[in-house]
């Protein structure tokens, strides 16, 4: 497809891409300012957790300690000075020190968390792509058979159940019950302890809903292509069914699916918040939820900026894919 792009298109596209990238900066700035304002407008202080007693319950810190902490972390400054200071540091890649892990840089915690989120997101992405399109094609090719009804029925069911419900059901059945039934010889761990077999349940949970969606999308798209003239022509020419499916049906049916992949990836990365919290995975989502709970301002800002950047880049990629696959979207 790229071979057929005219030179004017690549020139126009480059300008378009640069403009879109330049727009990322004001988008991120707005995200930072709005997040900063919301954090500071919310009641409470990062030091409300105070001293921990034997039950890990809180007693308030003394006013002297609160003053010292405020000065140490710059919270004694007027809000606009705090914001400017944050922006100035952020430009240099310094997102500050976490209030919750006071000897850790936010960028280091995020750097530790990102692989967890992206590994889960990437595995779920691959699973959605392979299983979702596979089931969709299967259902379309077996149109109005039991296989079709089973796939569409399951896809409808799964697409209508939120992932935290799916996750809890998977934990109960595949972890707890399976462990009990097999007397501990086989079960799936319920996540949280590492990037190994612990990934199975979180990845399943994260991918089931988009998998169902992609399966339905693929089925519809394939059915549409199946009825088109070039498929009928290919079959009339005596081309093998396997070749017809792979070269003439799938290739054309993939167009709407490919354009959906960008938002899907963004969904899998940002949608992992619930799954990470459920399976106790210290990824970006888990860190974000904990940061909000602990009023860890620098971590809230840091994770929000990363999320905003991921979504912005995913949207940019989608728009570029549109430019490539849909001539009506080309600039100029």
């Amino acid at each position, binding site marked *: 497809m790229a071979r057929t792009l005219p030179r004017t298109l690549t020139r126009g596209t480059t300008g378009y891409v640069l403009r879109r990238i330049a727009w990322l900066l004001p988008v991120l700035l707005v995200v930072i300012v709005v997040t900063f304002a919301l954090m500071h407008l919310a009641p409470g202080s990062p030091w409300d957790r*105070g*001293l921990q007693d*034997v*039950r*890990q319950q809180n007693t308030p810190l003394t006013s002297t*300690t609160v003053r010292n902490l405020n000065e140490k972390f710059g919270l004694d400054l007027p809000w606009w000075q705090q914001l400017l200071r944050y922006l100035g540091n952020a430009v240099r890649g310094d997102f500050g020190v976490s209030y919750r892990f006071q000897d850790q840089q936010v960028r280091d915690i995020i750097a530790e968390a990102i692989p967890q989120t992206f590994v889960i997101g990437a595995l779920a992405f691959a699973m959605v792509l392979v299983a979702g399109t596979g089931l969709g094609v299967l259902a379309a090719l077996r149109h109005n058979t039991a296989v079709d009804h089973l796939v569409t029925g399951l896809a409808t069911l799964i697409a209508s159940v939120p992932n935290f419900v799916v996750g809890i059901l998977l934990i109960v059945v595949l972890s707890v019950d399976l462990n009990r039934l097999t007397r501990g010889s086989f079960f799936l761990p319920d996540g949280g302890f590492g990037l190994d077999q612990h990934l199975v349940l979180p990845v399943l949970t994260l991918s089931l809903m988009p998998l169902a969606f992609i399966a339905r999308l693929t089925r519809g798209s394939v059915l549409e292509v199946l009825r088109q003239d070039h498929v009928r022509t290919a079959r009339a020419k005596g081309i093998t069914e396997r070749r017809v499916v792979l070269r003439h049906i799938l290739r054309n049916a993939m167009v709407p699916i490919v354009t959906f992949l960008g938002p899907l990836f963004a969904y899998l990365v940002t949608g992992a918040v619930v799954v990470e919290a459920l399976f106790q995975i210290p990824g970006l989502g888990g860190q974000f939820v904990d940061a909000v709970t602990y009023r860890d301002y620098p971590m809230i800002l840091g994770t929000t900026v990363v999320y905003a950047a991921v979504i912005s880049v995913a949207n940019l990629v989608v728009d570029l894919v549109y430019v490539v696959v849909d001539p009506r979207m080309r600039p100029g």
Partner: protein
Amino acid sequence: MSTCEHPSAKGRASRGRVPIVVTGIAVMLGAAGCGNATSSPATGSARLAAEQVLHINSFFQPPSFDPGRDPGAFGPSALIRQYVEPLLGLTADAKGVRGAAAQSYEVSSDGLTYTFHLRSDGRYNDGQPVKAQDFVYGWRRLLDPRLAAPLADTFSLVRGAGELAALDPKADAAKIGLQLTTLGLAAPDDLTFRVTLAYAAPYFKFIAAIPAGAPIRQDVVEKYGFDRWASKPETLVTNGPFRVAERVTGQSVTLVRNPYFRQQPRLATIVAYQLSGSNVGVAWNKYLNNEIDISNGPPGNSVVQALSDPVLGKQVLQYDEPSESWLTFNTKKAPFDNPKVRLAFTEAIDRRAYVQDFSRNLVEPLSGLIPRGIPGYDRRVGTAESFNPDRAKALLASSGVAPSTLAGIHILTRNFTSKDTQFVQDQIQRNLGVTMTIDAVEDASTQLSRGNFQVYGPDYAYGAAYPDPRLFMDQFLTGSTTTSTGWSDPGYDRLVRQADATTDSARRLFLYQQAEEMLLAQAPVAVFSQTKRLFWIKPWVKGIVSSPFDDADFPGDLFVGDIYIAQH
């Protein structure tokens, strides 16, 4: 001279632990600390497993691995306590102290100067010897306002610390350095650390056992940074039995033996997972799946089921915790500005029924202010104010409060489904004929601090950081911000302040008990119940010597050297 041995000292003596020797005033208080500890159901002799790895869950994640920035005195410090060693440690019965980095200490006759004699074999995990100068540096740093240490106030009884705390880290930056040198901290030689207090404080020995007071090496801090030296395992140079080998923020901490520690623990590795406190179910599943060895149990009512389970029921370890809950009266607002009304409410609640019907036996009834396990606890104290519906009715009738005032009482709670508050509402209705309206609000803490309530709770109120009754008694001193009763009594203040500074332990406890009776007779709070610790421990985890001041997730962590994994 007195010797205080740990209950399992026989087994450990062969490994060379030296019992603490104390003199002077500390003899009397320290000697009282010998007793029996609670042992886990898993104790007994068993063959060691080849892999000595303990997997635990730690809901509490330290905000910093720098001991100076630890926000908890004992309970939450479990992880930090494994890789640092302060001067002293608590005895197993949690009433006295034993030697740790210091093998003995002396107290001057005026109770103001403590001289600690360090062990000559104390070593950091890089092999360097522990010196008294490291304690001087560590304690100065802890009290330095620029560190903003949460526990600085706990150590502020050191001479000169009050003046130092008054300095502003920014405005008075130039004065801080000088003030640090005037603190009552000295190291006459490498193995002697001397602390001079601003006032006599017989409880200071417990403060010397807090991990935040561990030695810190100046060269390490200067090399890696004042706030950054503890951020990586490789720069975290400490003197405890373990060292931090790996830290994955928010996920897990792996501790391995400090090869230079004088007495190697039986466990080779402790892996502490850091599952969020909000998701108890995940930790319980991991316990059932044998991924962790110790659990606080399942969420909600499943506890009852797990307690009666034929297998899980045998893995339970339960003991008292020095913490309690109470019902808070606002003594500044009618009708609770009348002591007779407060007492009537206090005596109208059947705490035993509460424990049996509602608390799933996770608490015990309590009437006095000083809970079981804390010196000064007397089960007779507070009995006069415990359940007595007839007396409660008579008290209310004699209070002179108009029925219209009683008709409009609101009880505040932070829990929208609080069975505890509903229980109190029901008891007051049944035993006093007073109908209360429950106000469940999210910002209960704010309402309490502003005095916008009549009665609040019952709610978890306070847990002692170390075994001294002053922690409970000081809560009710005039000006204390930790309770919201608004209650104040000069006589109570006088008694408590006198007791706080009294070095004679018997006299001290007598004064506290007098003050406690004075407080209970005026009932600014209705003490409700004492919390119990409840753990499930895998049968292969042996040698747990539990203490009320253990970590809430890690029983036996004060004596971690005794824990081992049996063959299974």
